[in-house]
């Protein structure tokens, strides 16, 4: 929480900058500039806020915030909080009660609550006369203000306390879905998918009910908010202090001494140990793998995820599919690694690949096999033989035998193919992912130009190679070749002594140099500056975007309101407030105009809203957009929010 101190920063005296009426005798009514539709009035010890009609609105601002919306949860249950920066809400008090106003000066929650607090940055907790409710940050009530206590399950469901017991309220049905008969509830709101059941406590023991109050698991357990899930595996209950895993589908309880070391795999199966061996039970309660393995682990490297699990038996490893089918029996020494629908298998200290039937697919073993990053639709495997790399494309079965120090992705593209950059002793070439050499490995540099064309550099110089036509388009005799800035459909080849260069089209034909294109000047409204003979300072006026002069150049300074509300014009020591058409709002000129943020030296744009606090001599008045004055008498300027607010 930060306390934002809003003090003198918010009362800048425009230009004239004189501290007003310092010697004037108090009490007198003083007031601030309007901000977010309100201004603060101070009289002696008392202080309150008025709205733009000049009427009292509230006493004090407690906090300011931007309301938020949340994005729908993504597949792993994360959602983002998006603040609505256009809208500012002010938490205010009036006669000891709390409410909320927005920056249009409108009440979104009337000042009738004892407290209003922000919760989890997304909800408002409202309390009145010992009852509470929640509202969204725009002030919309999500449940009636009638419960002793309440918690949030999701936007539609709230656990509510009434008569000392807890029930579930549905916003959609506008009623108690589950009567208030329980001692406590728990629910996993943060689990990836929302559960359709609740943990509930009765007579000190916990059980599980659905949203229709049907008992799914009887009230026989202890519970703490650990290992919460929302699927069929209940891992957060204990029986007589002992860990249990319960399957909600078949209601079966897994517990010591028969079952130990219970965890749920990323595939949603229960992994447990029975008679010192591990097996798997599916979310539907079906036995997936018998209790015959020394271990069952994840089969993927860091970035991988999928339906396969690694099984270990007698020191050998194999692969099991999540439905229980053994894809590769445990016969390999060393870890089998799953990569998409293929498996990297260790063979006598080297590696080969197996497909999803478990069949070995490479004719020989390699010193290393890794899955290349997933930039391409079909997976590619890097093959290593001693210090050299090649690759294998399982889609067409093509093997490019190891002959490179490096194989990497490239920014070079060509129609109908995916490309890889290969290199050896810092000479570079290109291959298609289907295994064809596209550019021989004889260049110092290979860079993308346009699809199908690649800028190459060798000792003789830079040129362009046409991938589709398999030939040099521009011979490698230039200092540099790139896309012409003047015409992106042309290539520009430069020599050291000739920076202007020669131009080629994409077919390799020399063409004349393109003409530089200049965008036409856009019509724009702007300040008009008029030089005055004998004066070093010009006078200012304003032309609209059709070029028509709407303010004649007669002012020493002209400040334009950013949102088109009008102009502040200064001539001599006097200010005139002009409307958007450049016409004076009032006949009267002012000695000073107060702004929230004073314009710096040389600034021509300002931001303000009406009513605007203007000074003439000792008199301060609020000028409305209609050119009238609010019926408020002011003798001095005070800060809008001198106490600071909590954000």
């Amino acid at each position, binding site marked *: 929480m930060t306390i934002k101190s809003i003090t003198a920063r918010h009362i800048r005296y425009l230009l004239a900058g004189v501290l007003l009426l310092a010697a004037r005798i108090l009490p007198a009514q003083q007031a601030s500039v309007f901000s977010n539709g309100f201004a603060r009035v101070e009289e002696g010890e008392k202080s309150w806020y008025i709205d733009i009609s000049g009427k009292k609105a509230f006493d004090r601002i407690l906090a300011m915030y931007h309301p938020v919306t949340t994005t729908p949860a993504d597949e792993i249950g994360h959602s983002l909080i998006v603040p609505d920066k256009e809208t500012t809400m002010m938490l205010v008090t009036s006669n000891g009660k709390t409410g909320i106003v927005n920056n249009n000066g409108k009440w979104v929650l009337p000042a009738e609550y004892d407290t209003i607090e922000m919760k989890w940055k997304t909800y408002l907790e409202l309390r009145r006369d010992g009852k509470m409710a929640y509202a969204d940050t725009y002030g919309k009530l999500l449940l009636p203000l009638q419960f002793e206590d309440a918690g949030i399950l999701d936007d539609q469901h709230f656990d509510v306390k009434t008569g000392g017991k807890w029930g579930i309220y549905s916003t959609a049905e506008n009623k108690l879905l589950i009567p208030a008969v329980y001692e406590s509830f728990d629910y996993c709101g943060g689990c990836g998918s929302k559960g359709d059941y609740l943990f509930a406590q009765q007579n000190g023991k916990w059980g599980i009910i659905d949203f229709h109050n049907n008992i799914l698991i009887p009230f026989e357990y202890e519970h703490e908010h650990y290992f919460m899930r929302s699927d069929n595996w209940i891992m957060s209950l204990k029986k007589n202090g002992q860990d249990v895993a319960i399957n909600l589908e078949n209601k079966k309880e897994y517990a010591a001494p028969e079952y130990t070391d219970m965890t749920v795999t990323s595939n949603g199966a229960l992994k447990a140990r029975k008679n010192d061996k591990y097996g798997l039970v599916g979310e539907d309660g079906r036995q997936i793998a018998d209790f015959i393995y020394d271990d069952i682990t994840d089969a993927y490297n860091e970035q991988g995820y999928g339906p396969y699990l690694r099984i270990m038996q007698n020191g050998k490893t194999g692969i099991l599919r999540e439905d229980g089918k053994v894809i590769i029996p445990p016969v390999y020494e060393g870890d089998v690694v799953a990569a998409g629908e293929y498996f990297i298998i260790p*063979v*006598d*200290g*080297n590696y080969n690949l197996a497909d999803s039937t478990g069949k070995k697919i490479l004719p020989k073993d390699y010193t290393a096999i890794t899955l290349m990053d997933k930039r391409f639709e079909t997976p590619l495997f890097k093959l290593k033989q*001693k*210090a050299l790399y090649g690759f294998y494309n399982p889609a067409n079965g093509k093997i490019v035998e190891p002959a490179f120090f490096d194989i990497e992705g490239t920014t070079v593209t060509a129609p109908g193919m995916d490309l890889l950059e290969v290199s050896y002793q810092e*000479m570079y070439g290109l291959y298609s992912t289907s295994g064809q050499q596209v550019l021989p490995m004889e260049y110092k540099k290979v860079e993308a130009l346009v699809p199908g064309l690649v800028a190459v550099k060798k000792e003789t110089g830079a040129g362009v190679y046409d991938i589709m036509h398999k030939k040099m388009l521009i011979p490698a005799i230039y200092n540099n070749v790139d896309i012409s800035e003047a015409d992106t459909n042309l290539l520009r080849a430069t020599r050291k002594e000739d920076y202007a260069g020669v131009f080629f089209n994409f077919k390799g034909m020399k063409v004349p140099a393109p003409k530089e294109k200049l965008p036409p000047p856009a019509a724009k409204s702007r300040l008009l500056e008029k030089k005055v003979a004998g004066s070093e300072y010009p006078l200012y006026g304003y032309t609209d975007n059709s070029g028509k002069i709407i303010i004649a150049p007669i002012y020493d300074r002209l400040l334009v309101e950013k949102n088109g509300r009008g102009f502040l014009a200064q001539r001599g020591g006097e200010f005139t407030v002009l409307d958007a058409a450049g016409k004076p709002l009032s006949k009267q000129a002012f000695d000073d105009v107060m702004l929230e943020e004073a314009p710096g030296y040389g600034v021509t744009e300002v931001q303000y809203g009406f009513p605007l606090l203007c000074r003439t001599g000792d008199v301060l008045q609020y000028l409305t957009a209609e050119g009238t004055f609010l019926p408020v008498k002011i003798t001095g300027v005070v800060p809008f929010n001198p106490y600071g607010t909590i954000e």
Partner: protein
Amino acid sequence: MRKRYILTGLLLTHISLYAQQQQVVADYLGRFDGQLAPVMINRQKQWLHLSGKVLVDKLENQGYFKTIVAVKHNAYGAVSHAGKIIAPFKYDEINLADEKDDRDSSKNYCFVITRLNGKYGAADTLGNEICPPIYTQVEPATPHVLKMKKDGRWGWIDIKTGKILQEPIYEDAEKSYVRDYTIEIKKAGKAGLAAEDGTIIVPTEYESFNYLSSNNTYFGFTAKGKAGVMDHDGRIVVPASYDKCSMGPGSDLFAVTQNGKTGIVDAHGKTLLPPQYTEASLMGIVMKVNKGGKYGVVNAAGKEIIPAQYSDIKAVNAEGREIYDGPVITAPGSTATPVLAIPLVFLVNNGTATGVFDADGKQLLPFAYNRITPFLRERTVYLEVEQQGRTGLLGLDGKVIIPPAYDGLMSGYNSSYSYLDDLAGENKKNYLAVLKGERLGLFNTATGKEILPAKYNWIQWQNNSVLFLRNGDTTSMADATGKIIREGKQYGFFTAVDTNRIVETKYNDDGTTTSALTDIAGNVLYSSNQWEFKEDRATRLLMPESTRRRNAQFSDGLLKVWGSYSSTRNNLFLDANGKEIVFDGYSFVGDFWNGLALAGKDITPNQTLYGIINRNKEVVYPITADDLTTLGNQILVKQGKLRGLITREGKVLLPVEYSEINDLYGAPFFKVGRNNKYGITDTLGRIILPVEFDDIRYREDNKLFEVTREGKNGIADATGKMIIPAIFDEMETNQGYERNLFPLLVKQGEWYFYLDAQGKSFPYKSKKKKGYDD
């Protein structure tokens, strides 16, 4: 691959520099960047090792001891820092196994693990094969042995000799964390411990071992789910019959826990205190225990020296700090108990009252204090006590040092009050500032008397006899007994200029200043309104660095009288009796130090020359300089555009004949210049490099000078010896981050080649240096 070999002697003129050897002519040579330099030979991009002996195609990895793994002939090999190929370029894979412990070099090792046809071996950095690639796995185990796997079983090998110390028979072998140079072994699922030579220390009969003490004397073990303790030799000292065992108080006792209760047993398994405590935590060599929510202390002998009946207990060591944890022994193998782990006293809370118990559990101070905190002074621990809201200071024996009559004892500085005792001298330790509200007083702990009441916000010893006091805008002075020697005076300015002399400065209404020299009794010995005394105004040129911050003082029996700026009496001093001493013949004489002073003579009304004179007005350094300034510990003489160097005693180090004399960024050298040529001297002005170079750059990290003479580059060492003669047209140092300048890439005539630190060239040369685009 076609290579051209040329006899250098036939082509080059600098035969004397390097031995005639076969030279490879490269397409280009690049500057060294760490271990390697990029070179192009026969249009093949390669990398030259800094030994100059090995060319590789690609760097794969480099380790702590500058061993590199590289690629050549499309296979992996390894090269030592000395340039020896320790694993030939034939392997499928090579991994570095190394460890560098900055504090304990006995933990260091470095070797490479080789892989060929799916099997693993190892080689050391001298090039010896530790074991051929015949194992399914090889990994480092301890600094002395590597472990290898064969047929699913682990054994280990001596890294130094390659001898198999343990045949592969274990299911697992891991470095043990409970005992140094020990391997935890596993057989039939049970754990044991073996020495590096394979000797069994603990047979494979246990579930696990756990770390107990930092000095390796004992370790924990688990059998059938119960915990026990073994000694360093693997003998069971506490049988496995507890839920948990940890080190107890002292070095040979153990805290054993059963059913949530903790007791103490000794190294013979004998129960000294049966399990009874719900909580037990080490406070250095003793243990704080909790029974029924009340605390007591068990000492290193296993005796409950403070019964468990107090609300809290803190142990304080000889540095006055609270002891929280068990003793930490940092020196390997040390068994001595660190002194900071030994409690000096215990601060015991009984409800809201605090008392003090000694290290044997005897009550020293009754439960009569609201608060007691240790107070360290002059390396002695005292107790700051609070009684009825008043603070005092007691000795550990309970003797009252300062009675509890104050709001606090001063320690450190505060924005509203300061006690400055830097100049208090030997008796400094006898004085302690005391606080009442925000006001300071001074207490003499040797006499047990308050010497100054707490009414000041500034107390400062100006020397060992005079105290300067300030209270708001009123100042006064006291002697070391607290006797006021100058009564409080608003805007008064007193400065002690000696232990028995005070200068009083008065600012007169007409804008002038009157300063007076007085004795302690206040007798005015000298007074003048031409004297503008300021306590920080003094000539410090001749003072050594350590004393330059001192204020204006009598020195050599004289106090310089600084006049107003219009005054002509810049040669005036006072002796201790206030008698004027004038140094006739000099227009300026600065404060004396060590019997010498800066002296000036007006040559013309606009020019003064300076020199150094002694107390007898004799010239020590002639009055010839336009200016004298400090340069390091010496004095730089400026005379017109020329510079010279003298000592603070006036001895000439370098005659006034250089155009510049500068220090070299804090290095112990001066760079001297004359006629756009430069040389180097040491800080005593002795020539290291003669004044004949166009440019000299000092390489602090290497203690070497890069020099240029007549457009040619070379390198000199810190003694001035040219280790690379200045004969090269171009010279580029190694730009790796290891701060080694060598090998150099140099150009002589039309050829580029490399030179090592001995000036020996490598057998590669080229007419082209690697460019940005290559």
